[in-house]
């Protein structure tokens, strides 16, 4: 995992913006708070699943550095894309990521999130290690890469059982771009976010 994350850290550390260190205790409190807020929303049976997931989407949007992750994931294709394509890509990527995480979390059925460790990583970032546990099932190890910038902590990557979601996304997009260029990726994202869920 360290080698995998190094590539991500290198990118997120590059911008000239000055930001503070990310204290591990604040980072773990942030992740714990995120889990608590998510569970509160998901357990609210007074509103429909769509409404619960819409609320959750807001929480996810506030917690992730979506635009920055989007640029990182596009890699070199970002430089080749024109203004129009960049703008549409960032919109679609945000929709896609928020939808993906929301649907995954929306399937909540009594899991608990336990903080196991939180440490400084590469001076300015923090890595919070957690375990998502559910009765009768094997625990899932989830690491959260977070950064404090302008006083706010945001998530840069989620590593599930050693697999970085950001890098997985980057690889997937790279193969689409190699085949279809940016137009193909935009079309795929357009379709992904337009996919229909279960209907009543």
């Amino acid at each position, binding site marked *: 995992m360290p080698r995998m994350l190094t590539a991500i850290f290198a990118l997120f550390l590059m911008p000239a913006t000055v930001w503070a260190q990310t204290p591990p205790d604040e980072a773990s409190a942030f992740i714990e708070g995120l889990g608590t807020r998510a569970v509160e929303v998901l357990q609210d049976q007074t509103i429909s699943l769509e409404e619960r997931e819409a609320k959750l989407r807001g929480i996810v949007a506030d917690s992730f550095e979506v635009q920055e992750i989007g640029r990182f994931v596009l890699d070199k294709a970002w430089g080749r894309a024109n203004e129009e394509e960049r703008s549409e890509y960032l919109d679609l990527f945000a929709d896609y990521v928020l939808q993906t995480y929301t649907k995954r979390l*929306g399937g909540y059925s009594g899991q608990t999130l336990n903080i196991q460790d939180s440490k400084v990583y590469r001076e300015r970032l923090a890595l919070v290690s957690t375990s998502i546990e559910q009765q009768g099932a094997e625990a899932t190890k989830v690491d959260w890469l977070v950064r404090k910038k302008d006083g706010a902590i945001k998530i840069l990557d989620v590593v599930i059982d050693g697999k970085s979601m950001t890098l997985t996304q980057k690889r997937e997009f790279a193969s689409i771009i190699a085949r279809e260029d940016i*137009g193909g990726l935009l079309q795929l994202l357009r379709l992904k976010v*337009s*996919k*229909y869920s*279960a209907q*009543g």
Partner: protein
Amino acid sequence: MPADTKLTHRILLAAAFAGGLSVANPALAQDFSAGWEAYQRGEFINALNIWTPLAEAGSSKAMFNIGALHDEGRGVPVDRKKAIEWWGRAAEAGHAQAMHNLALAYIEGDGVEQNYDRAYGWLERAAYHGLVRSQYSLGKMYEYGLGVDTNEIRAALWIERAAIAGFDRAQYNMGKRYRDGNGVDQSLEMAARWFLAAARQGYSKAQNHIGTRYLRGEGIALDKIEALKWFTLAAEQGHSGAAKKAEKLKAELSAEQLAEAVTRAETFEPRRATVY
């Protein structure tokens, strides 16, 4: 089996294959609703168990929903192959949303071999069923030449269908097409009308564009108060370009004009809008 019973049986089967079983049969419709209520409570396995016999009996709505459960990993592990199998059955039974999702699966090549011809075929069928997302996607396939030859006129025709039906992104796209004469005859007036329709529905990019049209009097009567209103609304949704334009424009307006723009922005409520 008596002749009238045979006939009833055949009608029921026909209804099932047309995807209408859950509607045609009140008992099954009730079961379907019980599955939906379980789904809403987050009891996905329960919903799956209720919908499976309905799907086996021919309900395309149940088939589609089971596909979605497998696709999203709700109550079951993510299984694209199973999702595609169920959507395939629902699509064959005439379920438009299943056609759309199936088309996406063929474009992605995840869980099924990538096949643009099949993707196009399903997307076109869904589009003819009136699904605006499919109409818009077909237009984009023609725009980028994905699985078809690039054809801006066909692209504009499909996107315009979605726009007329009220899809804000398609309306915004038509605004740009009329502005640039891309697949349609250039018309700044039509561009402004489409941007305005999408803006009224709350689409931030269109709000930014219509703000610019009002500021320049391009295709629409010059109106700086309206321009500031739309820039403000777009900026509130995080559009950084609109925020900069709003700041610049504020310096040109009187206190009364500023107050009027603020009032209009504050009282704005997104609503369904179209051009025709």
